[in-house]
């Protein structure tokens, strides 16, 4: 590999008020290299990349590309020097086609003829070279998230990018899509491109990069060649202390708490769930794995009382609950953490305390005769904040101010504080960093130990394996038979998720 330095960030410092988001950061990127920028949420990764790309102006420091200094705050100059950026939230026009999106910004506004044919040819070459297959005439809004990301990458390559920056590229992808992405990045690096990807996921950093730069609290804490480091070391470097995800202990189970029998749900003519049968005993955790979009959301909504099934029964400690609403369930000590904390779990414009009491507002503790007991609500929330280590807000601040991890701690906390007999944990750690994941896992294990039946629905296989006693897979709205966690390996889980559970016991 050539030792040619294509990008040099020299002593970058960026302050927001008194807070240094980037503190004297220097990074070099060589030709043909894939560098992972690893750090927890809020470590300054995105700020740094925004400086490189010209969105922010640093307070100190310089950016050099191919040895040439780039003036600050000029994205155009960065693009001209060959930097391409793939944002976490795509910057594509959904109502335009792929080719139109790719060409946007490359053509003069008042040009007489559009060079679509030529552009298509160039796009085709890029597609073939890197295996990034997309139909150029498809509308971007019709594409899957993975395909949209390919379009973003193609757009950067079309603009002759030699340095590609990807901000949390796998955050929105399924596992298979993520693997495909890293294959592509590898091919591009072999072709001489240089790549930086931002991540807080240790697995993909280990698998996808040549070198790792670890950021913590705005500083570079370490640089390692990927081949000479380990997940454990990186986790420690990233968090600053040793984090270990807590592990499930053996336990004995009680009676069946949750029993779902023959539940079916259809939306119009489409069947979303069919023949769902499961049982969870007190103190037991059942994990549900599956490729996203196979009915997890519907299953969670049915169990959470948001949707009512068309057929079948759901019972909790023997009482039928399939037609109850969320508040009734909450009264029956059912704890529910929703799949998407921002859209389902919290009303962003309300305060922390309002969000913590909303599902129990009719409870005499929090209201009487239609009037809200504000001070009780605040005190309850303060207690949750202390017990579940929620940082970054007071009971009176808006919940949208919280980071994902802290919001999730509060949402889980408001379930656990009521000592649930049954806990639904849907995607409990999606998008969270290592520290927060460990805390959430700890909380779930405490609930299990206290005798709650836990239904864990997650796309993170490591999470499911480490927390669950039994595992089922969901595929096409149907559940596989349950297997004991001790008897699964990744091959078996893969088959289960693909819907091939013929040989399972």
């Amino acid at each position, binding site marked *: 590999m050539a030792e040619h330095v294509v990008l040099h960030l020299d002593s970058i410092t960026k302050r*927001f008020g008194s807070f240094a988001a980037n503190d004297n950061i220097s990074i070099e990127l060589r030709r043909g290299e894939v560098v992972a920028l690893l750090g927890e949420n809020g470590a300054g990764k995105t700020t740094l990349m925004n400086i490189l790309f010209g969105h*922010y102006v640093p307070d100190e420091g310089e950016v050099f590309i191919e040895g040439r200094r780039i003036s600050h705050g000029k994205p155009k100059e960065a693009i001209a020097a060959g930097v391409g950026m793939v944002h976490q939230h795509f910057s594509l026009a959904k109502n335009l086609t792929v080719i139109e999106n790719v060409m946007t910004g490359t053509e003069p506004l008042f040009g007489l003829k559009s060079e679509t044919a030529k552009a298509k040819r160039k796009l085709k070459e890029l597609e073939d070279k890197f295996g990034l297959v997309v139909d150029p005439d498809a509308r971007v809004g019709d594409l899957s998230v993975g395909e949209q990301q390919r379009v973003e990458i193609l757009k950067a390559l079309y603009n002759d990018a030699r340095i590609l920056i990807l901000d949390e590229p796998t955050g929105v992808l399924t596992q298979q899509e993520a693997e495909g992405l890293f294959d592509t990045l590898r091919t591009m690096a072999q072709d001489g491109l240089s790549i930086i990807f931002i991540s807080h996921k240790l697995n993909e950093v280990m698998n996808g990069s040549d070198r790792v730069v670890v950021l913590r609290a705005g500083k570079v804490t370490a640089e390692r060649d990927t081949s000479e480091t380990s997940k454990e070391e990186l986790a420690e470097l990233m968090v600053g202390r040793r984090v270990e995800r807590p592990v499930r202990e053996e336990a004995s189970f009680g009676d069946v708490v949750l029993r779902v029998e023959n539940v079916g749900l259809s939306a119009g003519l489409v069947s979303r769930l069919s023949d769902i049968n499961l049982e969870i005993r007190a103190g037991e955790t059942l994990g549900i794995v599956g490729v996203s979009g196979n009915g997890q959301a519907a299953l969670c909504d049915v169990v*959470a009382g948001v949707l009512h099934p068309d057929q079948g029964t759901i019972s909790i400690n023997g009482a039928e609950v399939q037609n109850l609403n*969320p508040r009734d369930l909450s009264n029956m000590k059912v704890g529910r953490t929703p799949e998407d904390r921002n859209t389902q779990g919290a*009303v*962003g414009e309300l305060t922390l305390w309002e969000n913590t009491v909303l599902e129990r507002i009719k409870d005499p503790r929090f209201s009487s005769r*239609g009037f*809200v007991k504000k001070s009780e609500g605040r005190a309850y929330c303060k207690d949750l904040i202390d017990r579940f280590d929620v940082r970054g807000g007071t009971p009176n*601040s808006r919940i949208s*101010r919280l980071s994902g991890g802290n919001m999730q701690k509060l949402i889980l906390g408001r379930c656990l504080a009521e000592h649930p007999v049954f806990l639904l944990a849907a995607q409990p750690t999606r998008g969270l960093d290592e520290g927060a994941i460990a805390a959430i896992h700890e909380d779930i294990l405490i609930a299990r130990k206290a005798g709650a039946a836990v239904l864990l629905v997650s796309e993170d296989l490591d999470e499911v394996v480490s927390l669950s006693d039994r595992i089922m897979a969901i595929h096409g709205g149907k559940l596989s038979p349950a297997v004991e966690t001790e008897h699964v390996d990744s091959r078996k889980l893969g088959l289960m998720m693909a819907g091939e559970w013929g040989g399972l016991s």
Partner: protein
Amino acid sequence: MRIEQREHQSKVLIVVAPLMAVVASLSIAGVLIALAGAPVFEAYKVIFVGAFGSKFAITETLTRATPLIVTGLAAAVAFRARIWNIGAEGQLYMGALLATAVGYQNFLGLPSFALIPLLIVTGAVAGMVMLVIPLGLRLRFGVDEVVTTLLLNFVVLLFVSMMLDGPMKDPLAFGWPQSVPVVDEGLLPKLVERSRLHLGLVIAIALAIMVYVLNQFTVFGLESKAAGFNPVAARFAGVPFEKTLIKVACLSGGLAGIAGAIEVTGVKGLVSNDLSASFGYAGIVVAMLASLNPIGVIFAAIFTAMMFVGSESMSRTFGIPSFIADVVVSLSLLTMLVAVFLSNYRIRR
């Protein structure tokens, strides 16, 4: 430079921002006054004196503010729950029309203290129906209520014209399209002798306090806010979503209907085509000026009334079109939107 959200809304700015907005809008409108050839400061002085300079002026301004407070509240409660009720004008007219239909004869021989509440409740019911129907269409079929409530205004106005020229026409009105008058027992008592200022002002302020209490201290207030801002999360938390929105629609439409009943029983005693000087639409501006705060609505309504009443004096004194009031009120809405933004965010370099 970038803009970021403040951690807490600044308490000072909540009060100062609207005042700054008013000052800014007056400054901009000052340019227009200057272009029209009048001395700017003199003109504003005349507006102020015209609105507050005498006992009579004050009563006129407050009379004008009364329906604006109530329609402002109607808009504020609806917008807070993200129901875009643009139909207060129509709801007001329906409230006025139905209150008059019930009050043109005292069938039951009720005394004032019973008949007046009856007429106000009648107005409220009429307004409720006029908003619950569009909301029902939205909840059932996804029809945008901005369109339905706005268009219903025209339907209602034409309906009112029809009634005024037909079944409800006053035979003694020399052919003018106006309704039969409400009986004397149904009229609101005057607050000040020999003025138009009536008990409606007290009712309006009481309603503002009621809405404030509902918003701030009740389960309904919390649930309606949650349902408005994030229906998905509200449903997940077990807030009865449709029920809550229907309650909000009843409150909002009811308030607009009350505005109509008050205007009829307080000022004119009958319905005519010019009963409302666009009070329904102006209520939207009032609500926005007040950042949807019910107590702020009182002040925003008085400010708006001041501009309209005062600019008539200015118009007489300097020969400038009184439309300048519309300009100032509209500008203050725009500057207020900027001010609200700034009080929630800060600009950083």
